[in-house]
């Protein structure tokens, strides 16, 4: 087969454009139905996040209560309580350049 024959074949095939009318009919309707079905199935992530708001609120309240109760049981001088058993000499030496 030479190039001329091949070009003739292409030329003949070009005139036989594929019939797409059946698929084209109602394509937009099928697409929108599919998009809506996907949305209904998955749902947007922020809609799901809103459902978790009560859970997060409960966690925040629980942390607040726990923190408040913990503070009440601590000594009044919090700084002193934290640093009471800490040896500060290495830090002091480091800062002095020793």
């Amino acid at each position, binding site marked *: 087969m030479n190039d001329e024959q*091949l070009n003739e074949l292409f030329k*003949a*095939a070009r005139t036989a454009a*594929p*019939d*797409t009318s059946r698929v084209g009919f109602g*394509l*937009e309707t099928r697409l929108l139905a599919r998009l809506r079905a996907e949305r209904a199935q998955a749902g947007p992530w922020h809609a799901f996040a809103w459902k978790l708001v009560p859970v997060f609120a409960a966690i925040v309240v629980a942390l607040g209560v726990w923190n408040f109760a913990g503070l009440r049981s601590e000594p009044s001088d919090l700084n002193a309580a934290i640093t009471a058993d800490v040896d500060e000499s290495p830090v002091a030496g480091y800062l002095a350049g020793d």
Partner: protein
Amino acid sequence: MSAPDHEPSDERLIQSTLAGDDEAFAALVRRYKGRLLGIAGRFARNDHDLDDIAQEIFLKAYRNLAKYRGDAPFEHWVSRIAVRTCYDFLRKTRRHQGDVPLEEIEIAVEDNVGARRAGEVLQWALAKLGPEERLVITLMELEERSVRETAALTGWSEANVKVRAYRARQALKKVLETGHER
């Protein structure tokens, strides 16, 4: 293709779609489905394939619409999606169809060949080629796209398009000469 004066522009329909108006997207689909089905129809084996490809093209366009910057016409942007989707389809569904008797090929390339028969023979022969070869032949020889257009649609360089087109023609000739798989 652009919008007639009495119809909303592509840009307006895109903005409305992004704002959640599904009917605006349906209008975009109506505007471009003929052109895109014409491209996809060259690759699909039947209506079922064509419907799958067409839906995939427009769903990809819908999901990526926010990335469309408007620096090229919407038709070009969505055509690139169409070509990429067709290419992916070819890679996924490459199958070997039954051999066509050599006499039928010879008849098809003789001067009395009918367009329909020529199309069938060519489709059979193209199915024997690789996805890239088939893509470049379809775009350049059947869709009559230029090298530059083919490069823009496929993302290949123009030099690459020329090389692939040459090799694809040689491969196609070989398939048509032998009537069998390469």
